[in-house]
């Protein structure tokens, strides 16, 4: 099976993101966790059925994001090729990306294209479905496991209300991965450093037309709610609480 996994970077939320004067301060990037699951599932499928795994790492030419380490990590885990795809005007609207990517994938003959179900930056979950539209390939999302069955794959996906469903998807296809079948495999640092040293990361570029449909007005952190501790005997506290409810008009 010829598989491709798409790997994007997103802001690292652990390193608290600060907003000053409506602008986001420079922050660190990290691999989008759902995409790491897509890579993991791709490697699992390769191990099970043979074939190859290409990992496409997407970066914006103007941003600080670094995709080399996540790509090396994918190689360390078992991917065969790592391709850094630099996009101009990488939009937070996936539609432009999707169009360009569809074009890019045209002659690549992948049996399966896996992407994380969503990125935590744009939060739309639309890359997969839009690729599906532009590439005219079947898509299904929220996938948690994949099994190959002559020319098709049987996927398990999470449905609402705690239900699970099994679907058969004709290949080639696009899948949105919510989590790989197994926990992400561990890569010791020494091994990662070794791979980074000798890894060959291929590079490619994608031109994306400027898009002005949506523009950033400002970034801001929500105001923190005011917290008042009511102290005293239970009766007293109850009285104060009633008073407070009256004040805000719920009583």
């Amino acid at each position, binding site marked *: 099976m010829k598989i491709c996994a798409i790997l994007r970077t997103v802001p690292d939320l652990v390193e608290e993101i600060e907003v000053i004067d409506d602008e986001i301060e420079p922050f660190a990037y990290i691999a989008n966790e759902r995409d790491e699951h897509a890579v993991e599932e791709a490697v699992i499928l390769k191990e099970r059925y043979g074939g190859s795994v290409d990992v496409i790492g997407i970066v914006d030419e103007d941003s600080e994001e670094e995709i080399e380490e996540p790509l090396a990590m994918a190689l360390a885990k078992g991917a065969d090729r790592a391709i850094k795809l630099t996009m101009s005007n990488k939009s937070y609207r996936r539609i432009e990306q999707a169009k360009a990517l569809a074009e890019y994938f045209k002659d690549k003959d992948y049996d399966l294209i896996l992407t994380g179900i969503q990125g935590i930056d744009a939060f739309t979950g639309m890359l997969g479905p839009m690729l599906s539209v532009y590439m005219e390939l079947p898509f299904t999302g929220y996938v948690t496991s994949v099994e190959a069955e002559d020319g098709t794959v049987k996927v398990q996906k999470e449905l609402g209300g705690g239900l699970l469903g099994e679907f058969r998807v004709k290949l080639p296809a696009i899948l949105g991965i919510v989590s790989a079948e197994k926990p*992400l495999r561990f890569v010791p*640092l020494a091994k990662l450093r070794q791979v980074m040293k000798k890894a060959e990361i291929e590079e490619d570029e994608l031109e994306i037309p400027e898009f002005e449909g949506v523009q950033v007005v400002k970034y801001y952190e929500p105001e923190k709610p005011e917290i008042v501790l009511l102290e005293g005997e239970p009766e007293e506290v109850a009285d104060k609480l009633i008073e407070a409810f009256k004040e805000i008009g719920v009583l």
Partner: protein
Amino acid sequence: MELESESEMLETYMERLSEIQDGEKYKQCLQCGTCGGSCPYGIVTKFTPRKMILAVRANIIDELLESGAQWLCTSCYSCSFRCPSQIPLTDGIIPAARELSLLEGNPPEELARALMNTARYGNPFKESPKKRDRWVKEVDFEIKTLADGPADVLFIPECFGAYHRRCKEVTKAMAEIFNRLGTDFAILGRDEKCIGDSNRLSGEFGLFEELVEKNIKAMEKNPFSRIVTIDAHAFHSLRSEYPRFGFSKPVLHHSEFLAENLETLKEMFSELEYIVTYHDSCYVGRRNGIYDAPRDVIRAIPGVEFVEMKRIKENALCCGGGGGGVWLDSFIKEFMKERPAEERVREAANTGADILVTSCILDIPMFEDALKMTGLEGQIVVKDICELVLEAIR
């Protein structure tokens, strides 16, 4: 990219052992079983250290790795301490096997996360490195960082001391003692990374080395004369492992520092009416032979009645937190109902003590959890030795 074959595994394993001091002494194993009987998990594991050596000799390391036995180690050093052939089991046989699991890519999840977090953020909690010195804001005196200027003492709170809600209290207590004693001390602040001992013992040698390099670099920013740390694991690593990488400053465990300043402290002590028992942590006691310093400090506090548990000094039972054990709780729970920490707090409570004094930062969360599990909460309180000292000089 897993290890292809048994022989490749064996080769990797042997290579690692050859790099560890005395690692090749395993050849002298008498198969006496002292290690197995001494291990807190000996009763449940499929491969005691003795059998691990057999597995290596028979080249069936894969069976060993599948059993998970390599993760049933709290690095308490009981086996190594008692081994009649002085084989470095805790520092060699076990972490070298763990490394194979890491290379296979499948260590227990909780531990894997802690290791990945440490690699990325310099702490296992997935906390921002920027918050490492946030505890400083919670004390009412100035604390300088080494980057700002030289100091006599470099104080290392390590990850638990810097981030863990309860352990931060110990850090602050120690800082206050420094302040009261007029010690010229500084911290590395945000430059401090995880000292890394648990990474080493978890088999993540590459990460350990990277952390060592970063920390040594941070320590070179300004001169200082010695290190004091409240973290027994950091203490051991800084004292015994860092010198291999060119670090050469004296390193004191905070109980040693307190003992050294005991005469001054004595003048500041006021009476405390407690019955106190003391838990010898593996790294302060067994691994580094410090038994008297903490006892001398406790005994010097007026009003304190000091009582001993049954298993003391080199024979003290481990809290279960070391060598990554604190990240293996759910893994180990599948093998063993009662945690070592629970057995230990029962033993402490049986002495009739009000306070269980510890000298290793991991003891605090381990024992406080154990008190909850055993229903002994309220009967006995866990305090670090510097918290007890601070209480006596307040």
